[in-house]
């Protein structure tokens, strides 16, 4: 692996300019996908034969749930990059990801319970899927609390990365909980080895919405990482020059 190249792209200064150029395009693509996905989910997809119109919650629930896991892996991976290879940008991306991940986990839990009430008759049940997702929320909140509690940013990043890496054991538990245990939560309908047991007219909007959520996260994490860079490197010449240039325009 060519490390000199990695270090160039992982340099906060390089990343800052790159992200300024890329983020707006990601944001536009994300907005288009949201419009297409919402139109498909709310109008094009037919009502479910068992769950009626309530199944439309799937289009905001499942993408949030997927993102809650995906962002956690990004956070742990970026944290490892900082912890093991001392890539400062890794620490910054991990720190930038945590609040977004926590919000998506909250949304997965909230929209899930709004779906559970009419379908199961209860907002909450302590089954394996719901409980492990709640633990995921606590892992995010723990990470965020740790960042706030430790003054020295390097130490906070190191402690956060260790917490995030230890917490990854919860990720397969969340994912496979519906197969390993008898849960009230329904089993997988998309990520199965055989063909998904969901009709194409329902599946396509779900995939579009998931892609929209993924691009949303990418856009937001770029902006949030820029904020981390500005805070981390506020005493460097390039940040001061950049800030002066931007505000003068």
């Amino acid at each position, binding site marked *: 692996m060519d490390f000199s190249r990695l270090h160039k792209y992982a340099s906060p200064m390089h990343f800052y300019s790159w992200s300024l150029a890329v983020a707006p395009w990601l944001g536009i693509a994300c907005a288009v996908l949201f419009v297409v996905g919402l139109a498909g989910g*709310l109008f094009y997809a037919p*009502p479910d034969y068992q769950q*009626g*119109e*309530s199944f*439309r*919650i799937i289009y*905001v*629930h499942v993408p*949030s749930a997927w993102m809650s896991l995906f962002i956690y892996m990004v956070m742990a991976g970026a944290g490892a990059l900082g912890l093991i290879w001392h890539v400062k940008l890794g620490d910054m991306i991990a720190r930038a990801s945590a*609040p*977004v991940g926590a*919000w998506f986990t*909250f*949304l997965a839990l*909230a*929209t899930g319970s*709004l*779906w559970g*009430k*009419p379908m199961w008759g209860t907002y909450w049940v302590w089954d394996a899927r719901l409980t492990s997702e709640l633990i995921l929320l606590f892992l995010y909140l723990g990470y965020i609390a740790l960042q706030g509690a430790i003054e020295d940013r390097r130490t906070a990043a190191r402690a956060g990365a260790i917490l995030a890496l230890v917490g990854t054991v919860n990720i397969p538990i969340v994912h496979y909980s519906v197969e390993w245990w008898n849960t009230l939560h329904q089993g997988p309908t998309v990520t199965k080895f055989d063909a998904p047991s969901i009709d194409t007219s329902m599946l396509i909007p779900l995939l579009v919405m998931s892609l929209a959520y993924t691009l*949303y996260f990418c*856009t*937001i994490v770029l*902006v*949030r990482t*820029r*904020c981390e860079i*500005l*805070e981390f490197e*506020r005493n460097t010449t390039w*940040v*001061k020059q*950049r*800030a*002066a240039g*931007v*505000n003068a325009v």
Partner: protein
Amino acid sequence: MDTEFFAMGGYAFYVWTSYGLSAVVLIANAIGPRMREKSLLKKIVQRTGDE
């Protein structure tokens, strides 16, 4: 758009609360960091000017 669409087959409360909550969280998380970046840049300029 007709009232049937908004009624969501009797599940209006659950469906629209889910969509509304998601919209509020996503919009707030999109605006917040941009405002933070602007204020950070402003603060850096002010501090540089004071030196």
